[in-house]
């Protein structure tokens, strides 16, 4: 079996990569991708901890499923917002968007 430490280490690495992308990428879509990576890391942690430590594993999976639902809703709204922003500003680069000041 895979130890909890190993899984947590993997999830932390995934979280770090996602955070790096969130901080560095200028495209809103790329930032959303990075955010989803971080959420995936969170899901892995929840599963690993609920299944390895004897806590109710079913509950952990239920929570992650709810999390997936929220993330999907968030992605849908975010992507439609990007389209709307592009329509009004003809750009989705966050640095240039903030320079336009609305």
């Amino acid at each position, binding site marked *: 079996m*895979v130890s909890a430490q190993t899984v947590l280490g993997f999830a932390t690495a995934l979280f770090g*990569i996602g955070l790096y992308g969130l*901080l560095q990428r200028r*495209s809103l*879509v790329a930032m959303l991708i990075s955010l989803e990576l971080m959420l995936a890391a969170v899901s892995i942690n929840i599963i690993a901890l609920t299944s390895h430590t004897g806590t109710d594993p079913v509950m952990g999976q239920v929570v992650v499923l709810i999390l997936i639902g929220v993330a*999907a809703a968030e992605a849908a709204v975010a992507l*439609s917002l990007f389209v709307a922003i592009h329509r009004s500003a003809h750009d989705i680069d966050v640095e240039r968007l903030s320079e336009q000041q609305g």
Partner: protein
Amino acid sequence: MTAENLVFGASAAVALGGALLAVGLRNIFHNILGFALAMLGVAGVFLSLGADFLAAVFVLVYVGAVAIAMVYAVMLSHPMDEAPAKRSGAKILSAVLIAGGAAGSLWMLLGTAPWAAGHRPAMVTAAQIGARFLGDYVLAFELISVLLLVAMMGAVMVARRSGSGRGTW
């Protein structure tokens, strides 16, 4: 080395590689492909942790739906003919430092915490999850379905071309 370990190692490698592609490449389409790859890897990790149903849902939602939606959004919003802007070294450096510092700190907290170890991950079936969703977590289940409905309608409303009359969607 057990099969589980093998599956976990391979999946984790795929996930991390996909994640690196998703944030590192400059072409947004390549990023989305890397993202799909990373999600596949994460699904593999779920498999190795005994969460079969979750792995399937992950592939369905992220690879099947979110990634595709992203492609649509990119096609609708990104100016394809423009060269991508130059990257700023200072920004990359600070992002690396902050993300590395955050991940390192998290690892110091999580990795050194005394987790209760030795439990073999039990297999969880879809039936168990379904029973929970219609039992203890029925309220959360209903709420999440309402949330998805609202998000879907909101997405349509926001993305609609304003002022172009009815029936265009």
